[in-house]
């Protein structure tokens, strides 16, 4: 649904985005992680035909961002939630959405239905005639999301959708994004929030001017160092150690207090056999846990490497 090849944007001598190549599938939630100034917003603006590229290619569906006529078509099939909500404070919530519905060429009947559905879904229907200026930050963010969805776009670009929101409002927005995910919309999510990215995204791209890594959150977490299986016992006898070391799938064994720390390539497949071997050797297992790197560990490592630290 979204394809870029060597997409580059320079502002004078500054290269904001360099040779970005990525592919986002239809119905996928793709997270774009990166520090401030990494080029996330510039990328979204290029994909939304708001600013031009310096070089490379980018397509949304069958339309190229190069062509002005295609850009009009792209704008019809995308919805954008920018970093700043940018609502008209002196107009009501309903009037704000109605204005954008008209610009997106949504027929009147459908427009009214969509406004009502979205505002009810976000719990703002009863306050639809209130001026936007009277709403809280979180509610404004919800209205801005409704605005991005008023024309039922195929692709949704969300730029920091929960930034500056209190935890409750952020949760409402995240839950709403999860609902959208169920509707199989393609979502391109710019965020600083690693937890949010991990919970919402099918795949994550880490950007620091250049694309540093792209993979699913799980695979990224595994990429830093192998997962370890930790077996907690009430005591570790020699028989248990011999049994575990004799297993071919266990690459290394370390003992710490009453814990066995095992390096296993495929824990999902091999852990049951390891447990059977320990129990067979007379070990009393209290519980089995996993030690893995977090997305934060991976993110910080990759960003530091990209910054040359």
């Amino acid at each position, binding site marked *: 649904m979204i394809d870029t090849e060597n997409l580059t944007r320079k*502002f004078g001598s500054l290269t904001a985005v360099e040779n970005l190549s990525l592919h986002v599938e239809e119905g996928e939630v793709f997270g774009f992680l990166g520090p401030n100034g990494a080029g996330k917003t510039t990328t979204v*603006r290029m994909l*939304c035909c*708001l*600013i*031009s590229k310096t070089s490379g290619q980018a397509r949304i569906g069958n339309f190229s961002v190069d062509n002005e006529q295609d850009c*009009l*078509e792209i*704008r*019809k099939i*995308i919805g*954008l939630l*920018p970093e*700043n*909500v*940018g*609502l*008209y*404070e*002196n*107009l009501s919530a309903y*009037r704000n959405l109605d*204005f*954008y519905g*008209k*610009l*997106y*060429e949504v027929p009147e009947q459908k427009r009214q239905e969509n406004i009502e559905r979205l505002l009810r879904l976000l719990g703002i229907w009863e306050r639809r005639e209130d*001026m936007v200026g009277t709403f809280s930050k979180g509610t404004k963010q919800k209205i*801005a999301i409704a*605005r*991005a969805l008023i024309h039922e776009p195929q692709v949704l670009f969300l730029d920091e959708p929960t930034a500056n929101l209190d935890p409750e409002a952020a949760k409402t927005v995240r839950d709403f994004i999860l609902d959208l995910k169920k509707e199989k919309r393609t979502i391109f999510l710019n965020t600083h929030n690693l937890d949010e990215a991990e919970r919402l995204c099918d795949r994550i791209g880490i950007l620091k001017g250049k694309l540093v890594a792209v993979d699913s959150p799980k695979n990224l977490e595994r990429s830093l160092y192998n997962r370890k299986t930790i077996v907690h016992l009430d005591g570790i006898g020699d028989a248990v150690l011999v049994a575990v070391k004799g297993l071919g799938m266990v690459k290394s064994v370390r003992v710490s207090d009453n814990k066995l720390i095992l390096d296993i390539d495929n824990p999902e497949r091999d852990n049951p056999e390891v447990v059977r071997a320990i129990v067979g050797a007379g070990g009393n297992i209290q519980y089995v846990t996993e030690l893995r790197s977090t997305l934060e560990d991976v993110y910080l490592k990759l960003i530091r490497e990209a910054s040359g630290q």
Partner: protein
Amino acid sequence: MRLWKSWIVTQKDLSVIRKNKYVFYSLMALPAILGVVLPVTFVLALNTEYTSLSPDQFTIAATQLINISATYLILISAVLPSIIASYSFVGEKVEKSLEPLLATPTTDGELLLGKSLAAFIPCLGVTYLAAAISASILDVWSYVRIGTLLVPNLFWIIGVAVITPLACIMSVEANVIVSSRVNDIRAAQQLGGLVVLPIIALLILVTVGAQLSTLLSVLVTVVLVVADVTLFYLSKETFQREEILTKWK
């Protein structure tokens, strides 16, 4: 260019203007002063002085007043867009509402036209309202004094029907250009207001020599048409979404 799209933008901007009390009162104040208070003051101040004049002398003296009042109407139409247009464009930037607006399937030209119309329509409407009231006051005065309606005369017709909208368009376009180069509403209003300087020069010329008025009005019309066409192309060049997003700070 889809005019209906521009009209959607115009309607929205007009709603915003209606709800902004500062803009609304500013919009009403100038026409009320120059279009109503000023003619009333003229009439009250000069009525006694003109009592001794013959009907012909009165017509000549009153015509000069009528021409000056027409020039004030032109001045109103050139000043008002600096209030609205600066809100219309810089206001969007201040409210940070430009990015979602520019992400809609609307062309630069459609947005530009829509926003320009939103500045043009109320300014011209208010100016014409002031013109109607001003003309009524002057006509009542002349009818009472010499039994003739002196408004509209040729200069008044050209001034109000031709020069006023042209001056208004010039001011809107100048404000579009100014808005693209400044950061806040007050700066946009101050710089946009500079467009009235040539109109003030016209006002001075009319005040010192009423007999030149018709010739002068034709000359001013030609100059304004040229200025409008030039500024239109300049404003179109300025109003480009990439420029707006990356350089409007």
